[in-house]
Structures are given as C-alpha cells and as structure tokens.
C-alpha cells in the first residue's frame, strides 16, 4: 500500500502560506533578525519571530489558522470523519497561557471548533517530535486505524525556552550557521506547519508524494548532548532506508537537522559518513527559520516537498566553509534539478533521532 503525503502548509516569519515561504527562502530571505536586549539580563539575541503575532494564545491560534488553510488543500469533508486523526507535534505548546496544562486548551478547542471525531494526539519528543509525528501518522494509516491523519507542528518563541538555551550556552551570538566552521549555537524560531498523510490520493487538490515511513532510535548516551558516534541517527536512518528498500546512493537530497551547535552538526556529519551519505546534497533550513523545535520536523518536511515541486534545492543559509570533521555536500547556492528521493532527519534532547523518506510517485 502506498501512503501519500501532501497538502503541506507553513506559517513563519517568511510568510503566511507555504508558497510565500518557499519564494522568500528562494530569494535568500531569512526570518532571523536581531532583538536588542531580548535575552536574559538584557543580552542582545537573534530570533526568528512572527511579526504582529498576538502572544496570548498564539500557539492555539496558529494551529487553528493552519488547520483552516489545510482544509483548502484537501477535501474538507474528511476532517470530521471517524477515520481521521489530527496529530500535534510540539515541545512547549501553550506554555505562555497555561504552564500547568500546556496542551489541554488546544485539544479541547480543536475538537470543538472543527467537530473532530477524536481528540488530537499530542506528540512531545523534543526536536524529533515533527519527524516522529509524521512517521506515527504514516503507521496509523498503514495499519488501518485511520485513513487520514493531519499532522501539525507548532512552537512559539518564549522567554522560558530562550533563557533555558542561554543557560546552556547554546544560543548563537550571530544568526545560526549550521555546519559552518564559524557556527556557535542555535537561533530560536517560531512557526506552524502541517502536512496530510493519507491512504487515499483523491482527497488532495495538488500533486502528492509517497511517504517512506521511517524509524526512530535513541542514542542511549546523554539526555542533552549528542552522541559522539552518531549511533542513534545512524541506526534510525539505516532502518529507514532498509525498510523502504532504498540504498544510500538513491538519496538525492538530505534535509538535515543542523541546529548550528558545534556538537550536533559534528555528530550528524559522522553519522552521514557512516551511512555513506556524504555525496548527497544537504542543507539545514534553520538559517531561514531558526530552530522551531516541535515544528521543525514538519516545517522542514513541508519545505522539502516544496523543493521537489519546484525542482529547486535551497542553499544552506548561513553556511560558508566546512566546519565538521567529515566534509558534507552542503548546498551553497540554490540548485535547479529533479529530485526523486529525499531523506529528512532530526535529532534532539532526550537522545532521540528520527528519519523519514519522501519520494516522487
């Protein structure tokens, strides 16, 4: 059975639709800007935040807005079907308004407003949440539990998360520069992105792709530091390739996690080397959007699908010179060309790693 994925949508500082986002990123724009004195103790920080976003209930409002626009990209009738599920991917949810129950409000509001047959399933697995959520969606459809799953990833910038990353000395003093020799940490971002996973091609209004459901693997090494050998990422991608009958040579593009921290990007380069994937054109989209945490896996998958539609691979914003012990094929200028199979990966706190494939039909 083919599992289809399509109807991608994205709200970020670069645009209110996925098309606006793709066209801004293609033109070399970034959502990252300097916020004087916004950090703890008035430190200047770079962030990627959505202008004019009302902070109260921003998380809930973004998810509702995107679910509305996803309905314009599919047959909207399926949303209320008992065979449809909404999956939410987020790390901190509605922390701003309700720190003691950050997801309860959204679950209740979505179910009521959209007359959903099931309460949305919230997946909260740090930075791999998005990729994991798409895989969960694929599995729930493949197993027949549901026919359609709408997957939405969202996280908003907060003092809470910013101060936390600052306390770990993990925030970059310049816009993040994934895989670059001069990289010095993450730039936090916010965004909301969605994709639809289904067993039925006819619900989609535009071209769809094939989802190659992937695996997750824990590093079993450290809760906040990446494995030095890339063991979990290696195992995750290895299993994802194997279960989909794809070999490393078939990968035309890697949408890497690439946070811009010294250790994460180094870990990824080691894992990709072990996997025989250093040939594949690769980028991290965090130079355009910052690290959007629970939204990142969905946002980056959505942008990868746009790259397939448009036949253009985006440059890895912020990258100038190789800064990992293994040389990767990091994209330095937008590249025109046809892409058949892409690999999306993610790694995060808690030692999680996840990966998936998107293929042209």
């Amino acid at each position, binding site marked *: 059975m083919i599992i289809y994925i399509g109807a991608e949508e994205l709200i970020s500082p670069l645009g209110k639709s996925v098309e606006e986002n793709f066209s801004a990123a293609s033109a070399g724009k970034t959502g990252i800007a300097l916020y004087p004195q916004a950090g703890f103790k008035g430190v200047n920080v770079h962030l990627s935040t959505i202008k004019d976003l009302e902070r109260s209930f921003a998380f809930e409002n973004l998810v509702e807005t995107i679910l509305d626009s996803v309905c314009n990209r599919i047959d909207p009738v399926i949303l209320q079907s008992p065979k449809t599920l909404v999956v939410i991917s987020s790390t901190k949810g509605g922390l701003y308004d309700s720190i003691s129950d950050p997801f309860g409000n959204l679950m209740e509001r979505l179910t009521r407003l959209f007359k959903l047959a099931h*309460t949305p399933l919230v997946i909260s697995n740090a930075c791999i949440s998005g990729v994991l959520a798409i895989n969960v969606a694929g599995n729930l459809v493949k197993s027949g539990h549901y026919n359609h799953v709408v997957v939405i990833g969202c996280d908003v910038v907060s003092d809470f998360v910013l101060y936390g990353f600052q306390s770990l000395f993990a925030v970059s003093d310049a816009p993040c520069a994934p895989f670059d020799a001069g990289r010095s940490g993450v730039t936090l971002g916010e965004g909301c992105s969605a994709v639809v996973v289904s067993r039925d091609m006819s619900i989609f209004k535009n071209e769809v792709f094939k989802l190659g459901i992937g695996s997750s693997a824990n*590093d*079993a090494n*450290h809760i906040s530091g990446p494995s030095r050998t890339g063991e979990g990422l290696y*195992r995750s991608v290895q299993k994802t390739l194997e279960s989909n009958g794809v070999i490393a040579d078939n990968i035309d593009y890697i949408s890497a996690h690439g946070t811009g921290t010294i250790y994460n990007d180094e870990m990824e380069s080691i894992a990709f080397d072990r996997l025989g994937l250093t040939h594949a054109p690769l980028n991290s989209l965090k130079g355009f959007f910052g690290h959007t945490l629970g939204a990142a896996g969905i946002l980056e998958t959505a942008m990868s699908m746009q790259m397939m539609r448009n036949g253009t691979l985006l440059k890895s914003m912020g990258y100038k010179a190789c800064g990992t012990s293994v040389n990767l094929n990091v994209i330095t200028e937008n590249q025109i060309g046809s892409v058949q199979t892409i690999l999306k990966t993610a790694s995060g706190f808690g030692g999680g790693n996840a990966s998936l494939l998107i293929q042209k039909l």
Partner: protein
Amino acid sequence: MNGKLVAQYDPSSTDGWLKQLYKGFQLNYPKFYKMDPLAQAGYLSSELIKANHPDRLLNYKDDAIALVLANRHASVVSDLAFKNSYEIQNAPSPSLFVYTLPNIVLGEVAIANKWYGENMFAVLPKFAPEFYEQYADILLNSGSEAVLAGWLDITDSEIEVFMFLLEKSFSEIKFNTVNLLKLAENRVV
C-alpha cells in the same frame, strides 16, 4: 506489582515517595538523584518491571524494546521549577531546563539500559487504553519485540504511575483495551 503490594508509603520518612521506593528496592544508580520526578518515576517503574522479568528483558537485542509513555501534564513539575529559577532566583538553571521536556524520561530509561529502540512520548487528556493498543500493535509489527509502556503523570500534588510490559512472544494477560483498563483501574503497577 502484578497485583501484589510490594512497598508502602511511610509518612514519617523525610524522603519523598519516589526516594523511598529507590531506597526500599536497594537500587544503585546515583544518577537517580539528578533526575526530575518524572524521570525518577520512569526509571523506578522500569527497574521494577525488569526485576520481575530478569531473564527475558536481558535477552532482547539492544534495539528490540520500544518505549511508549504518555501523560496529561507533560513536564509540569520541572517547568514550574525552571520558571522559578529565572523569575524568582534570577538565575535560569540549566540542570532544571534539561528536564523541561516530557521525553527526557525516555532518554533516561534508554541510557540506564543501553536501549537503542523506538521512543515516543504522547500527551493525552486522560489515560486511554486504545492509544497504547494502537501504537503497541504498530511497533510489535514493525520490528520491536517488546514495548515498555506506561502512564506517568506527575504534578506538584500527585504522582500517578502505571507501567506495563507488552511482549510479542510472551503473554500472561491478553493485551486488549478491556484488560488494560481493568489493570489500570485496579492500580496494578
């Protein structure tokens, strides 16, 4: 455990309930003291299940045991503690911040056991047997041999922990939503 009372809260102790359990079962894993209550509860309950099935769990390949945990309140205890560290104490604490994600407990259990398998943490409005049934069914049909699953909901006022082991090749109780709900309601940990 499995319907038997194996420990009882001692209100006269200066230790909290989780620490009482750690000491009572004579566990030796000093990292336990660094963990937040959510991770402590996950570590303790996984150790208790291991102690009850010592041979079987050791015989699985290092990536054959999947972890599936869920709760309602995510990482609320650590979230409030971290917020307090920057709002009240004016010094955001990195050791509290790293526990402000509910999936950290998965990492702690994986590290304690060197398990490289599938991991998932979900937030649900309440304990939902059908969630575990659906997802365990998927995992057991896609490479995992066993699933250590549970509900770990911890707030400042309440600790609610229900952990269970699902295995492909062994079955003491048939796994279905009815039996799972029955066990949960009887508070059989």
